[in-house]
C-alpha cells in the first residue's frame, strides 16, 4: 500500500489532462496487481498479465480509459467468470471436472429444452432478458438482478437503484419491452436481532436494512408505475452482514420488436439522466467482499435513484419503439457507456465522442465519463434519418437526448475526447477474459433423525405461524402498489377477505387473450445441508406455484439468480456446483428452460470474530403462460361445503423445514424431489383446471401441510375438517412429517363435491386423496388422524398470529 500512490505516477505518460497512457509492458506481476488495486480495477494478477500480453501483441501501451474498459468488461459482475471457470469438483469422495457451469448446466440444458419446444423461447441469454411467446403477436420476458453490496451500505438507495437497474434491463430488452410487473426477494437477519449480536462496527441493523430496502423499492417501483406483485423474504442470521436484495421485472413486447441489430452508418444516442462522478466503480465494487472499511470508504459508490428521470426515459423509449425508430437499444448499467457501447459496437465497431456527453459536474476526465454508472440512462442505435423524430419525442416526454457517436463497421471501438483518441480497442478482444481454474468439494452430512412425537399439534402450528419465515408479509406488500396498470388479476393478497397469501401472481396482458403468471422460490435453509436438493426443490416450488395459479405446465420458463460467499473456498463452491446440478436436473425434467440468470459472489464479511459467508442461495423465479382468464386459480378457500384433496406424496424427511429448525433438528435429511412424477401430477392438475374442476389450490411449502391448510382457510369462508388417515405417503412417515414436513410437489386443492369423481378419475393411480371438507358449521382448523385429534384451533386466533407477526417490526 505504501508506495501504491506512486505506481500510477511511475508509469503514466500524460499526453493530456483528460487521459493518460500507462506503460505496463515492463511491469512484473506484482506491480501489475498493485496497479489494478490502485485503480480499483478488481483484476487479478493473472488477468493483468493477460492484459499485458494483449498489448504486447499490439505493440503499444494502454490508455487509462482502455484499462478501465477491460476491467469493467472482465469484472465478475459483467462476465460471470466463475460460472465459466474450469472446476475440479469432488462430491462425496467422487471426483469430476466441470468445464463451465453455465455452459454445462444452464445453457446446454436450456438449448435441449428449446429444441423440444420449438417456437416457445424466442430469445435467451444474449439479450438483456429472455423472451417467451405469449401469443402470435406478443412475447413476455423476465429479468432479475441482485443489488446486495449497495443495499448493505445504504439500503434505501441500494434497493431503489437496484429496481431502477432491472427496469432498464427490460426497457433495453429487444427494441424496448414495457415493464409490466416486478418481483422483489430479500434475505435479511432477523428483525429482532439484538445489537450485541452484530459483531462488527458500522454494520446496519437488519431492521434498518429491511425498512430501508422496502422503502427504496416502494419509492422507485411505485413512481415508475410498475406493480410489485411477487416476492419473498428469508430471515437468517447468516444474512446480517450480507443482506441479499433481488429485484426482478417482467416485460411485454410485440414479437416483431425482439430482434435488433446495429449496422454501419447508424447513430448511437443516449437518453435519460446526465453523467456524473456519482456512478464510479460500481461494477468492480460488487465483485469484491465487504468489510468494515468498505462501509467507510465506498461512499462514492452510493447513488440515489431518480424514478421520474427513468419514467420519462421509459415513456420515450416505448413511444420510439412503437414508432419503429429504434434499431438497437441497451441499458446503461454496470460499466456505464463503456459496456453499453461495448455491447452495441462489439461486432460492428464505431466511434463514441465523449464531448457530446452532458455532465452533472465539470472537469470529468475521459475514463470517468466513459465508465460512470450514473443512473437512468439508455443507449440506442438509430437510423440517422430518425433523429429528428426522436428529438421530438424526447422533447415531448421531457428527457434529454444526446448523440454519442456512430457505428461504422470497423470492428474497432474508438473513443474520442477533446479531439483526441483516448481508447481504441478491437472489440473481439474485449470479451475474452482468461478462464479461471477453481476447486470445489461437497460432502453430504445429513442423517435420518427421529421425528418428535406430536402431543400439542396446535401449539406447534401456532409457533410455526408466528415464525418470521411464515408470518404474513402484508405490512410490506401494502407499501407496494401492486395494482397499478390495472392488470393484476391474481394479487399477492387475495381470497374472500383480501388478505390471504397467494402462491403466484397472474397479470392480464393488454392486447392478448392469454395471461402471465409469475412466481419465486428461495429455500436457503435446505441448501445449508443439501444444496442439490435445494436446487431441485426451488425449481419444483416455483413451477408448482405457477401451475397452481392456472399456468400451462408446458409453457413455463425460469431464471436462476445465485448468491454465494467466497468462491475460492472449496466447500462453498462445492455447494454452488451441487445447487447448479440440482436446478439443471429439475429444469430438464420439467422442460422449463432457463432464459436468463445472474450471479453475485463475495457475499462474505470480515467480522470481529472471523469471516461470515452467506449460505449458497438460489432464487428461482419464473414466468408462465395462463391460457385463459377462467383458468386463474387462487390459493384461498372459496366455499363452505367443498372437498379438500391433496395431490402428491408426503415423505418422511424433515430436513430444511421450519419445523426442524424450530425443534433444533440439525443435519436432518432433506426431502428429494421426484421430478418426473411431479410433472405428471402437474399435467393432470392442469387437465382439471382446463375443465373448470378446481376451486382453489395452495402449494405445500414452508410449515408443511398444516400451515398450508391454515393459510388456505384464512379467506374466512369456512372452517376445515381434515383427516390424515388417507394421506398419500411414502414409507415410515411420522405424524410430524405429515403435519409439518415440507416434501415438495404437493398441492392442497379445493373442489366441489360433485366433481370428486371426475377429478379422482384424472388422478387415477397417482398420489391423490380426499382429506376432508370445508366446514360451514365452525371456523376451526381441525386435523385428525382417525380418532386422534392432532389440531383443533380457531382460525381467527391462528390468523391473528400470522397476520401480526411482522406488523410490529415494519
Amino acid at each position, binding site marked *: 500500500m505504501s508506495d501504491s500512490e506512486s505506481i500510477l505516477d511511475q508509469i503514466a505518460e500524460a499526453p493530456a489532462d483528460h487521459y493518460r497512457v500507462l506503460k505496463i509492458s515492463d511491469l512484473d506481476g506484482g506491480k501489475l496487481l498493485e496497479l489494478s488495486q490502485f485503480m480499483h480495477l478488481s483484476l487479478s494478477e493473472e488477468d493483468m498479465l493477460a492484459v499485458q500480453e494483449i498489448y504486447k501483441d499490439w505493440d503499444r501501451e494502454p490508455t487509462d480509459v482502455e484499462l478501465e474498459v477491460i476491467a469493467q468488461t472482465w469484472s465478475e459482475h459483467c462476465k460471470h467468470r466463475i460460472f465459466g471457470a474450469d472446476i475440479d469438483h469432488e462430491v462425496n469422495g467422487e471426483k469430476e471436472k466441470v468445464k463451465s457451469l453455465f455452459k454445462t448446466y444452464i445453457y446446454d440444458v436450456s438449448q435441449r429444452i428449446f429444441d423440444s419446444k420449438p417456437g416457445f423461447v424466442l430469445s435467451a441469454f444474449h439479450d438483456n432478458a429472455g423472451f417467451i411467446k405469449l401469443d402470435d403477436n406478443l412475447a413476455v420476458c423476465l429479468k432479475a438482478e441482485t443489488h446486495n453490496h449497495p443495499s448493505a451500505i*445504504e439500503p434505501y438507495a441500494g434497493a431503489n437503484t437496484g429496481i431502477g437497474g432491472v427496469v432498464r434491463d427490460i426497457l433495453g430488452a429487444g427494441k424496448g419491452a414495457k415493464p409490466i410487473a416486478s418481483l422483489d426477494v430479500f434475505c435479511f437477519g432477523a428483525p429482532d436481532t439484538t445489537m450485541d449480536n452484530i459483531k462488527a462496527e458500522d454494520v446496519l441493523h437488519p431492521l*434498518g436494512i429491511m425498512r430501508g430496502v422496502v422503502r427504496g423499492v416502494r419509492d422507485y417501483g411505485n413512481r415508475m408505475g410498475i406493480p410489485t406483485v411477487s416476492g419473498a423474504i428469508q430471515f437468517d442470521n447468516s444474512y446480517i452482514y450480507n443482506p441479499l436484495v433481488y429485484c426482478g421485472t417482467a416485460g411485454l413486447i410485440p414479437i416483431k420488436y425482439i430482434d435488433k441489430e446495429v449496422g454501419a452508418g447508424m447513430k448511437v444516442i443516449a437518453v435519460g439522466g446526465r453523467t456524473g462522478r456519482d456512478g464510479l466503480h460500481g461494477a468492480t465494487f460488487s465483485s469484491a467482499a465487504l468489510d468494515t472499511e468498505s*462501509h467507510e470508504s465506498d461512499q462514492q459508490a452510493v447513488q440515489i435513484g431518480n424514478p421520474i428521470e427513468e419514467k420519462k426515459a421509459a415513456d420515450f423509449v416505448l413511444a420510439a419503439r412503437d414508432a419503429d425508430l429504434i434499431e438497437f437499444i441497451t441499458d446503461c448499467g454496470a460499466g456505464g457507456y463503456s459496456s453499453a457501447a461495448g455491447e452495441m459496437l462489439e461486432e460492428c465497431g464505431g466511434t463514441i465522442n465523449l464531448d457530446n456527453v452532458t455532465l452533472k459536474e465539470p472537469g470529468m476526465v475521459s475514463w470517468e465519463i466513459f465508465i460512470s454508472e450514473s443512473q437512468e440512462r439508455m443507449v440506442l442505435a438509430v437510423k440517422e434519418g430518425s433523429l429528428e423524430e426522436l428529438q421530438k419525442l424526447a422533447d415531448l416526454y421531457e428527457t434529454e437526448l444526446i448523440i454519442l457517436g456512430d457505428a461504422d463497421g470497423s470492428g474497432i471501438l474508438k473513443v474520442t475526447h477533446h479531439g483526441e483518441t483516448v481508447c481504441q480497442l478491437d472489440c473481439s478482444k474485449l470479451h475474452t477474459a482468461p478462464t479461471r481454474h477453481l476447486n470445489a468439494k461437497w460432502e453430504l452430512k445429513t442423517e435420518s433423525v427421529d421425528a418428535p412425537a406430536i402431543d400439542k399439534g396446535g401449539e406447534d402450528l401456532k409457533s410455526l405461524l408466528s415464525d418470521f419465515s411464515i408470518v404474513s408479509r402484508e405490512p410490506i406488500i401494502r407499501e407496494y402498489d401492486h395494482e397499478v396498470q390495472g392488470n393484476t388479476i391474481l394479487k399477492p393478497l387475495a381470497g374472500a377477505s383480501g388478505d390471504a397469501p397467494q402462491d403466484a401472481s397472474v397479470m392480464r396482458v393488454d392486447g392478448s387473450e392469454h395471461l402471465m403468471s409469475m412466481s419465486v422460490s428461495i429455500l436457503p435453509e435446505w441448501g445449508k445441508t443439501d444444496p442439490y436438493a435445494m436446487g431441485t426443490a426451488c425449481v419444483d416450488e416455483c413451477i408448482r406455484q405457477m401451475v397452481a395459479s392456472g399456468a400451462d405446465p408446458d409453457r413455463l420458463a425460469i431464471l436462476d439468480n445465485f448468491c454465494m460467499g467466497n468462491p475460492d473456498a472449496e466447500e462453498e463452491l462445492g455447494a454452488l456446483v451441487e445447487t447448479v446440478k440440482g436446478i439443471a436436473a429439475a429444469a430438464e425434467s420439467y422442460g422449463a428452460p432457463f432464459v436468463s440468470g445472474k450471479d453475485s459472489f463475495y457475499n462474505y464479511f470480515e467480522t470481529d470474530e472471523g469471516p461470515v459467508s452467506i449460505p449458497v442461495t438460489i432464487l428461482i423465479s419464473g414466468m408462465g403462460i395462463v391460457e385463459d382468464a377462467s383458468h386463474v386459480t387462487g390459493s384461498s378457500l372459496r366455499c363452505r361445503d367443498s372437498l379438500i384433496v391433496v395431490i402428491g406424496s408426503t415423505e418422511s424427511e424433515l430436513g430444511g423445514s421450519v419445523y426442524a429448525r424450530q425443534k433444533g433438528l440439525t443435519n436432518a435429511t432433506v426431502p428429494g424431489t421426484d421430478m418426473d412424477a411431479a410433472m405428471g401430477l402437474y399435467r393432470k392438475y392442469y387437465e382439471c383446471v382446463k375443465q373448470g374442476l378446481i376451486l382453489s389450490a395452495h402449494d405445500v411449502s414452508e410449515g408443511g401441510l398444516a400451515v398450508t391448510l391454515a393459510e388456505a382457510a384464512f379467506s374466512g369462508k369456512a372452517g376445515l375438517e381434515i383427516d390424515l388417515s388417507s394421506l398419500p405417503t411414502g414409507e415410515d412417515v411420522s405424524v410430524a412429517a405429515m403435519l409439518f414436513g415440507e416434501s415438495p410437489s404437493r398441492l392442497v386443492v379445493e373442489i366441489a363435491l360433485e366433481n370428486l369423481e371426475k377429478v379422482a378419475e384424472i388422478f387415477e393411480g397417482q398420489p391423490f386423496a380426499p382429506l376432508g371438507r370445508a366446514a360451514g358449521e365452525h371456523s376451526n382448523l381441525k386435523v385428525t388422524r382417525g380418532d386422534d385429534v392432532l389440531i383443533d384451533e380457531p382460525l381467527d386466533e391462528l390468523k391473528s398470529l400470522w397476520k401480526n407477526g411482522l406488523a410490529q417490526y415494519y
Partner: protein
Amino acid sequence: MRKTFEISDRYIEPGHADELLYEPLGGDLTFRRTRRYEIEFKRGKSKLEAFIEKTLRDPISQELHEGEDPALDDFSFVLEYGMKPGALDLEKEAILTYYRGIEDPGFELKELSIRQRIYVFGGGSDKSDRFIRDICNYAIHNWSVIQG
C-alpha cells in the same frame, strides 16, 4: 441575500419515537418532522417570497416559520439531517427544475439547501446518538443535533 424558514405540518400528530429506532427505547418519547429550507438568492425579495408561498408551502395543511430558530418548542433535542454534497436530493432537484422552467422568475436562486428536522419530545436528550445511528447514514447524509 439569504432566506431561512421551516415548514411544519398542522395536522400530523406526533409519532412514538420507537418507530424511528431499530430497538425500542420504551418510555414516552414522541417525535415530529419538519423541513427547513435555506435559500441563497439575488434580487427580487418579494418575488422570491411569492415563489416560496406558491411552491413550497401548502396554506391549508402547513405552517411557515421564518428565521433560524427552531419552529417548535419544548423539545428534548432536534436531529437535523440532509443529503450531503454530491448525494441526490430529489425534492431539491424537483424545485430547481421547476425554477429553471419559469420564464421570468424575478429573482435569481443561487443556492437551495433542504434539511429534515426530527424533533424529539419527552426526555431522552442523552439518546440522540441512537437516533443518529438509526436514521442517518453517512453514505448519503450529514447531520447535526440541537439540544433543547
